[in-house]
C-alpha cells in the first residue's frame, strides 16, 4: 500500500500545477543542477520521459505537450497501436515478461478483466481525492474484488446511430435527425425493418457489418457469456440460448434480408466502403465519430441520430493503467490522473470524439455545447450525453469474455463476410471454439 498522504500531496501538486498553468507564464524549466531545490515539491528533480501507450484514437495529441508545459521535467511520448487487439497482445506479452510496458498503458474494457487477474502487477490507483470522478459502473469495472482500483476511466462508448442523410433521401426516408430517430423506433426489429425499406430502394446496404450489430446487441445483455460475478462460469455456447437468438436474428437480417454490406470492421474493404457509398447506417459510439470522419473524408451526408435500437448501449471505452514494472510509477500515476480529469477528457472528446466517463463532464456546458461539423453540425455533446444516460445494462465481462466473443465474431464473419459457411455450420464451429477456451 502506498501512503495516502503521498498520494494526496501528489494530487494536490498536480492540481497546483494546473492552476499555475492557468497563469500566462509557463513555469521556468527546472535547473539541471540537482542541488537546487525544484520549485514544485512533487515535480521530479531530473528530467524524465514517460510513455503512454494508446490504440485507435485517444485524442491525446495536444494534451501530452500541454502536460510537459505544466511539468517541464516530464516529457511524454505516445506509443500508438492501430487496434485494441494489437494493444492487448503487446500488453499481455510484456506484462508476463515483466518489462517493456509503457509507463501508462491504455486498456480497453473488453480485455480489462484479463489483466485484472494480474492486478498485483499493476499499481494501485486508489485515490480518495478521485472518488466519484467516474460513473459508478465505469469505476466498478476497474475495481478488483478486494477494492483495488487498477485503471482510471478515460472514455465510454454511448452509442447512437450514424447515418448517411443523402442516401436516406434517395431512398425516400426522412433525413432530419429528429425524424430519423423516430423512424428508427426502439427495438432491433424496428431497426431491421427500416433497413428492409431502405435496401428495397437503394443500392447501398443498410449496415456495414453483421459483427458490429452483434457488438451492439451483446452489450445490452447483463450476462451474455458467463454466469454472475464475481466468479466467471462460462455458459457452454450450445446451451447459450440468449446468444443463439441474437445470432439467428442477426444472420437473418444480414444474409436473408441482405441488409449487410458484408464487411469486416477495420479491414481495408470496410475502410474503402466509406468512400463508395457501401452502407447507410452504422452503430456509432462516441469514439467511432473520429473513425468515420477519417475514413469518409470528403464524403458529405453523415449525421447522427439520438436513438439506439433495444435501449441504450455502451460499446467499449478504455482505462489508463500504470504497470508496477515502470521506472516512474508515481509520476505515471499523476499523468494518468491528469489525463483522465474531466477537463482533459472534454478536450479529447472535442478532438477525436472519445466521450468522457467522468460524472462532472456529462453536465459540463463545455461538453453539451459541442457540435460536430462533419456530422452536419450535430450537437454530438448533447446527443451522446443523452445516449450515456440511456445506458441501463452493462454486461459482466470475465477473463474469458474476449475469447468467447471472438469465437462468435468469427462465426458471424464466416457467414456474413467470407460466405464460406452457412449459419448452422459456422455456429457449430463456434461451439467447439468456445469449448477450447480456458
Amino acid at each position, binding site marked *: 500500500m502506498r501512503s495516502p498522504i503521498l498520494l494526496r500531496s501528489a494530487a494536490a501538486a498536480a492540481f497546483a500545477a494546473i492552476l499555475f498553468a492557468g497563469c500566462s507564464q509557463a513555469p521556468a524549466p527546472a535547473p539541471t543542477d540537482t542541488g537546487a531545490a525544484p520549485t514544485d515539491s512533487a515535480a521530479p528533480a531530473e528530467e524524465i520521459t514517460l510513455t503512454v501507450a494508446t490504440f485507435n484514437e485517444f485524442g491525446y495529441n495536444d494534451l501530452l505537450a500541454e502536460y510537459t508545459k505544466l511539468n517541464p521535467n516530464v516529457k511524454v511520448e505516445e506509443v500508438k497501436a492501430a487496434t485494441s487487439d494489437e494493444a492487448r497482445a503487446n500488453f499481455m506479452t510484456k506484462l508476463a515478461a515483466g518489462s517493456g510496458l509503457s509507463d501508462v498503458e491504455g486498456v480497453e474494457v473488453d480485455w480489462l478483466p484479463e489483466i485484472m487477474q494480474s492486478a498485483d502487477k499493476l499499481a494501485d490507483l486508489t485515490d480518495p481525492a478521485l472518488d466519484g470522478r467516474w460513473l459508478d459502473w465505469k469505476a466498478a469495472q476497474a475495481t478488483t474484488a478486494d477494492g483495488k482500483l487498477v485503471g482510471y476511466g478515460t472514455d465510454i462508448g454511448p452509442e447512437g446511430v450514424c447515418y448517411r442523410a443523402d442516401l436516406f433521401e434517395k431512398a425516400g426516408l426522412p433525413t432530419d435527425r429528429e425524424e430519423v430517430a423516430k423512424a428508427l423506433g426502439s427495438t432491433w426489429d424496428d431497426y431491421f425493418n427500416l433497413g428492409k425499406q431502405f435496401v428495397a430502394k437503394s443500392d447501398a446496404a443498410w449496415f456495414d457489418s453483421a459483427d458490429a450489430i452483434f457488438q451492439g446487441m451483446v452489450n445490452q445483455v447483463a450476462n451474455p457469456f458467463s454466469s454472475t460475478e464475481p466468479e466467471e462460469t462460462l455458459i457452454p455456447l450450445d446451451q447459450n440460448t440468449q446468444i443463439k437468438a441474437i445470432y439467428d436474428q442477426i444472420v437473418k437480417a444480414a444474409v436473408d434480408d441482405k441488409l449487410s454490406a458484408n464487411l469486416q470492421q477495420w*479491414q481495408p474493404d470496410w475502410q474503402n466502403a466509406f468512400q463508395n457509398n457501401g452502407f447507410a447506417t452504422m452503430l456509432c459510439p462516441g469514439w467511432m465519430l473520429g473513425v468515420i470522419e477519417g475514413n469518409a473524408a470528403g464524403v458529405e451526408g453523415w449525421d447522427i441520430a439520438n436513438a439506439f435500437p433495444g435501449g441504450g448501449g455502451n460499446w467499449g471505452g478504455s482505462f489508463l493503467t500504470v504497470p508496477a514494472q515502470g521506472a516512474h510509477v508515481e509520476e505515471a500515476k499523476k499523468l494518468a490522473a491528469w489525463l483522465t480529469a474531466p477537463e482533459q477528457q472534454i478536450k479529447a472528446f472535442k478532438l477525436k470524439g472519445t466521450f468522457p466517463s467522468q460524472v462532472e463532464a456529462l453536465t459540463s456546458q463545455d461538453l453539451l455545447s459541442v457540435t460536430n461539423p462533419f456530422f452536419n453540425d450535430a450537437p454530438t455533446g448533447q446527443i451522446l450525453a443523452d445516449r450515456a444516460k440511456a445506458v441501463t445494462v452493462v454486461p459482466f465481462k470475465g477473463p474469458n469474455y474476449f475469447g468467447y466473443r471472438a469465437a462468435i465474431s468469427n462465426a458471424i464473419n464466416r457467414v456474413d*463476410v467470407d460466405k*464460406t459457411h452457412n449459419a448452422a455450420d459456422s455456429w457449430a464451429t463456434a461451439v*467447439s471454439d468456445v469449448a477450447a477456451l480456458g
Partner: protein
Amino acid sequence: MPAQPDVAAPPSSASRPAFDWRSFRSRLDVKSAPYLYIAPFFLLFALVGLFPLLYTAFVSVHKWGLVTGNQGFIGLDNYQAVLDQPRFWQGMGNTFSIFLLSSVPQIILAIFIAAVLDANLRAKTFWRMGVLVPYVVAPVAVGLIFNQMFADQSGFVNAIFANIGLPAVGWHADAFASHVAIATMVNFRWTGYNALIVLAAMQAIPRDIIEAAVVDGASRLRTFFSITIPMLRPTLIFVIITSTIGGLQIFDEPRMFDQIGLGGNDRQWMTITMFMYEVGWGNQRNFGRAAAVAWILFVVIVVIALLNYWLTSRIASSGAATAKLHGASRLLGTTKGDRR
C-alpha cells in the same frame, strides 16, 4: 603466437624437475587457442540457441501459464492437449500449403533469374542489386501493402482481374486463395535473395566444363540441366533447407494479412507459429502448450529438412547420371568427387 621451439621440444620431467611455466603456457596456448577463438560463437549459441531450446522443452512438460508461471510437472499432457486440438492440424495443413506454394516456385524462379543474370547483361551490378530490393522491405510493410492489394472487394488485384474479365477471388475468404496471396508476399521478398545465392554458385562453375559440353554438342538447355544444376547441388541444398526452415516458421506475412492477426475467421491462413502464438499469448494463455507446439514444430522441421536433403541429393545425382549418358563423363569426376 607461440614460439616454435617450445612446441617442438617434448617436455622432459626427468631432466627438468622444476615446473617450466613458460613452456606450459605456450603449450596451453597452442592447444587451447583454436577453441578460444571459436568459443564466442558457441557461447553465444549456448546462450541464445541451446538454452532457449532446452528451456522450451522444460516448459513444455509443465503446466505453465503466461502470467501465472510454473504450476508443476504434468508430463506429456501438453503435447496430448495440442495434438487433440483440430486447430493444430489445421495450422499444420495451412503451413505446408503456404510452404509448398512459396518455396517451390521461389526456388525454380530463383534459378531461372540467376541463369538470366549470369548471361552477359549490360549494367550487371544494377540488375543484380535490383533483385535484392524487395528483400530490403520489412515483412510487416509488405504485409500491410499486400493486405490492401488483396482486399476481397476493393483490392487492386481483383480490380485487374475484373478488367481482364476474370471473376473476383475471395483472397481472404477462400482458404487456398489466401495461401496463394501469402505465398506471393513470401516470394516477393525471398526470390531475389535466393537468386543471388544461386548466381554466386553459378559463377563458381568452371567455364571450361560448360565449353567442353558445348563442344561435345550439348544444347544450352541440356548443358543447363546436366551440368549447371548438378553442380549447383551444394548451394541448392543450402537454399532449400533455409527456405524450408523459413517456410515452416512463417509468421509475419500471415499475421499481417488482416488487422486481427489470428489467421482469418475460420483460421483459414493460420500457420503453426500463429497457432503457437495464440495458444501462448492469445485466448488460452498457456505457455506449456505453446512450448509443446514449438517442439513439435522443431521436430517437423528437422524431419522435413532431412527429407529435402535426401531428395535434393537424388535430383542432382540423377542429373549427373544423364550427363554421363551423353558422353560428358570427363565432368563426372568433378561431380562425383564433390558428392563423396
